[in-house]
């Protein structure tokens, strides 16, 4: 029962990622693409969790935390770049 539900859920997540890739290609402005990439990162976390249930191993559970952290840092860097033009600001007295 769990395996059938996991297969259905992986199918739904794959369709969701395909829709987000459509928005990533077509999106008219730059923040649209960043929103789509952030949602793709979040959905990849769920796919890793589902695959680790499907393979019945707990070796991939660090990847969940790692993908969450990387997705957040990438989104913050992109939004700072879009807002101010630089990702890391220079010190004032240099």
């Amino acid at each position, binding site marked *: 029962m769990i395996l059938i539900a996991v297969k259905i859920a992986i199918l739904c997540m794959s369709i*969701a990622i395909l*829709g987000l890739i459509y928005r990533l290609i077509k999106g008219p402005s730059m923040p649209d693409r*960043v929103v789509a990439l*952030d949602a793709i990162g979040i959905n990849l976390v769920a796919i890793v969790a589902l695959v680790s249930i499907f393979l019945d191993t707990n070796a991939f559970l660090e990847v969940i935390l790692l993908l969450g952290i990387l997705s957040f840092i990438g989104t913050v860097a992109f939004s700072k770049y879009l*807002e101010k033009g630089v990702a890391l600001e220079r010190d004032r007295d240099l």
Partner: protein
Amino acid sequence: MIEIFKIIIVALILIGAFLSLVAAFGVIRLPDVYTRNHAASKAATLGVLAVLLGTFLYFYMKEGQVNSRVILGIVFIFVTSPVAGHLISRAAYNSGVKLWDKSVQDDLKLKEATQAKKGK
């Protein structure tokens, strides 16, 4: 006991997958950046949290011990995903992306106008 655990796990996983699918359709179909961000940063977060909670319950049922990495992942995603949505939305507003042309109210523009008037 085990059957109840299995039913709860299956329900959580299916609800999470359905919510992520709904979030993706929202990102495709809604008209401007802010509404798309609204769909992506709420529905996708709740869907992923449900899937991760199902995963945590599965490994708790299988091994009988609490797996702290999944709990850390749940808490981290729950804290950071709305913050990331807020940052993208503010960057979009400040870099001049227009609202949908049928939207009727722009509170931030109104507030900036009143602050400029008060400062003068």
